[in-house]
Structure formats: C-alpha cells, structure tokens
C-alpha cells in the first residue's frame, strides 16, 4: 500500500526524505555549518518581506530574463542554421560540444574585462551558459527527424521552406524544448555565478557576501530560494516536455 502511494507521488516522498536527511545532517554537524529546515524556511519568509531582498531578486531576475532570451534566440538560430546544412553541422558540431565540457567559469574574467562590471557582464555570462545546450539540442533535434517524414512531405510536393516550417520544426520541437529547459537552468546558474563577483546587487552578490561573513542564515535561505525556484520551474517545463513528446496523453 505504501509502495503504491510512493509510485503515485514520488516527488512528494522525495521532498520528505530530503527534509529528513537535512534535519539529520544538522543534528550531526551543528549550528556552525547548517540551519535546520524549519528555521531556514522561516528566515527566508522574513527576508521575502523586506523590500531590499526583493530588490536583489529583481536585479537577478532582470539579468536572468534577458540572458535567457538571448540564449534561446541565439541557440535556436545556431542550431537551425547548422541543422539545415549538413556540411556546416559536421564542421561545427565538435566546437559546440566542446563548449559543453569547458569550465566556463574560466572565461569569466574575460567577460568581465570585455563588458565591465555590472549588468552586461551578468547577462553575458548567463547567456554563454544557456546558448550551448539550446544550440546542441536544436541541432540534434533537426538531425533526428526520421527521414521518412521528409520523403512523405516531398511526395506531397511541399516546397523547401514549407517543409522546414511544417515538418522539420514541429518534428524537432520536443527535443528543442528539452534544450530550452536545460538552457533555462544553466542560464540561471550562469547569471548567479556572474553576480558573485564585481556586482553590488543581486542574489549572487548576497551569497558571496554571506560566504565572506560566514552568515549561515543568508547562505541557507538564498540557497533554498534558488533550489525551490529552479526545481519548480524545471518540473513544470518537464511536464510540458512530456506532453510535447506524447500528444493526446
């Protein structure tokens, strides 16, 4: 009976287990390192009632949204451009994949030197993180469309442009969406990272300052907020992802 409820609501049980683990680790490690779940939630609630905290959220949020738009647009453009041209795809794909395995934080100083300190640097850093998965997934999506669909479209006498619009794009959409979903998460991480240095506002800045001051409350609440936001949005996007792959249920 318990098994069935777990299968039905795995996320719920997972959250319960994680909260329990959190509490246990707190008992083992002590107040110097951690705050227990309840206190963290309360502290976060208090922070969310201050205008200053919302100012930080707005700062990060703005940078993030702009970076996300850039990531998606640029990623789609690159992925599609390579997707419809097989030679270009073969030549440039290794570069894209390399972009995935390189520690982009090593490029952070270059971003700071080019864009200076402040909003543009955050946006740029976030965009760098997000554009790579979107481009890679879009490219893979285009090459994974079963060729039979193009043959059928040719037999129905579609023009090349019509084929891209009415066959390639809808067929590739599920994988493109997965790329955007991952791009979302990575852009958020990149934006926060970009805020950790050379910034005077934003959640990343808060985190960095709290680390310096050993302010456990702030560290834990901001982390919790980020985890909650990331997990929630990702779960919603995942649900949409599944719906795209399986239309009609």
């Amino acid at each position, binding site marked *: 009976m318990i098994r069935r409820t777990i299968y039905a609501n795995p996320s719920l049980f997972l959250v319960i287990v994680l909260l329990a683990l959190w509490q246990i680790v707190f008992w083992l490690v002590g107040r110097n*390192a951690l705050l227990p779940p309840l206190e963290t939630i309360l502290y976060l609630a208090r922070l969310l009632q201050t205008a200053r905290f919302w100012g930080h959220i707005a700062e990060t949020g703005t940078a993030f949204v702009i970076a996300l738009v850039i990531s998606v647009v640029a990623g789609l453009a690159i992925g599609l451009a390579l997707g419809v041209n097989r030679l270009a795809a073969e030549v440039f794909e290794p570069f894209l994949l390399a972009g995935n395995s390189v520690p*982009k*934080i*090593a490029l952070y*100083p270059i971003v700071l030197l080019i864009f200076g300190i402040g909003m543009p640097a955050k946006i740029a850093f976030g965009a760098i993180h997000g554009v790579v998965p979107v481009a890679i997934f879009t490219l893979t999506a285009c090459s994974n469309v079963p060729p039979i669909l193009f043959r059928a479209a040719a037999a129905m006498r579609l023009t090349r442009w019509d084929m891209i619009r009415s066959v390639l794009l809808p067929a590739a959409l599920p994988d493109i969406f997965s790329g955007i979903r991952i791009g979302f998460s990575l852009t958020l991480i990149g934006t926060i990272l970009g805020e950790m240095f050379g910034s005077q506002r934003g959640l990343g800045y808060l985190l960095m300052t709290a680390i310096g001051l050993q302010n456990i409350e702030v560290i834990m609440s901001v982390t919790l907020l980020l985890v909650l936001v990331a997990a929630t949005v990702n779960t919603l996007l995942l649900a949409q992802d599944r719906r795209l792959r399986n239309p009609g249920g």
Partner: protein
Amino acid sequence: MRIVLYRLLAVLLPLALLEILCRDRVITPLTLPAPSRILLGLWTMMANGTFNAAILKTLTNVSLAFVLSVAAGIAAGAAIHRAPLLRALLEPLFSTYYAIPIYAFYPLFIVVFGLGDAPQVLIGFMLAVVSMIVSTLAGLDSVPAVLGKTARVLQLSPVETIRSVTLPYAAPYLFTGVKLAVAYAFIGVIGAEFIMSGTGLGYEIRFAYDNLDNGVMYPLILLILLVAVAVNMSLDHWERALRARRGRG
C-alpha cells in the same frame, strides 16, 4: 578531409583577426593581449614550471572527483536499477538535479570540511556522479530482456552474464556517462577553486585577475581550455573506435 580543413579555418581565421586587432591596438592589451603573446606566455610558463604546483593540484582534484564519481555512479546505478521503488523515488531528483546551483552548497562544505581540498573534490563529485548514475541506468535499461533469458538458458554465471551480455550492451551509455563525468569534474573543481580556494588553477586565475595580471591570467585560461578540449577529444576518439569495433550505428 575537407571537413578537418574547414574546422582548422574556423579556428585560425578568428585568431588571425584577433591578432590583427590586438596589434593595431583596436583591442587594448588591458582587455586582451594578442593571441601570439598569450601562446608565448603559456609556453614560457610551462617551460619554467611556474605553475606546476597549481596544475598538479587541480589535476589531482579533478581525477579524484572523476574516479570517485564513476565508481560510485556505476555502483549506485546498478543498485538503483534493481530497486524499482527507490528508482521511482529518485527519478524526480535526477531530472531536476542539474537545474540546481550546486555551487551554492560550496560554503556549506567549507564550513563542514575546512579549507582543504575536500570541498573542491566534493563539488566535482556531486556534479559528476548523477550523470554517471543516469547513464548507468540508461545502459542497463537498454539490455533487451530476451538476452537475460538467453544467458540463463545458457547457464551463464552472474559474473559471466555481466561480462559478456550486460557490459557490451551498456558500454555506449557508460561511455557517455564517463564523458559527462570528466566534463563535470573539471567544471566543478575549477569553479570551486575560482570561487573560494587558496590553491589550484582556478584560484590562480582569480588571483591574476584581481591583480590585473593579464600576462598570467590569459595563458592559464588557455591552458584550462586546451586541457578540457584535449581530454574531450581523446574520449571522443576512443568512443568512436569502440563503436566502430562493435559495428553499431
């Protein structure tokens, strides 16, 4: 091999352009020194062994994180594969995991483990292990049920079954997991070094940036990029060789 030629051009042409722009002072050395000087700087650095200690430290930590994550990942993946209830519970965690800013846990690790190497290795491990687990699960999933039955009919022992049936089938997926683990180990360790450490290449880059020392910073960044790309390319090469031998695809 036309394609290799195009790729070389894709790398060399922008570099040549950068070189010209830098020499003409369109781009100031304070932002970006000429590529030729960066290369020269790197060469000198390696020849003099100036940063050998940092390189060794980073590579050691990366290797440690990598080996641990692969071992733990495969073991955990195999165990979870045989426990469907546990798998259902963990599934939401796996799909949301990479949306979470793992770096936010870094301060926690420092407080718990002190300022040694453990926090860096732990971050690298945490980033890499889940991709290894997910890849192991996918690999084990890919073994058709009929092969398990065949193995039992042929009276193969469990070890023989794993060696001659499970492993060959799961190998491509395991390899993907290994590639991801390497990339994540790099990203995790170097990122952690950059944010808050006293040793390693990530720290040296940060130190150089803080001291406006472009002559040191850029060659180090180039070094990291080269190492990451080289490791990735050799893994790719190895993977292709393995796949050719199996005649798959």
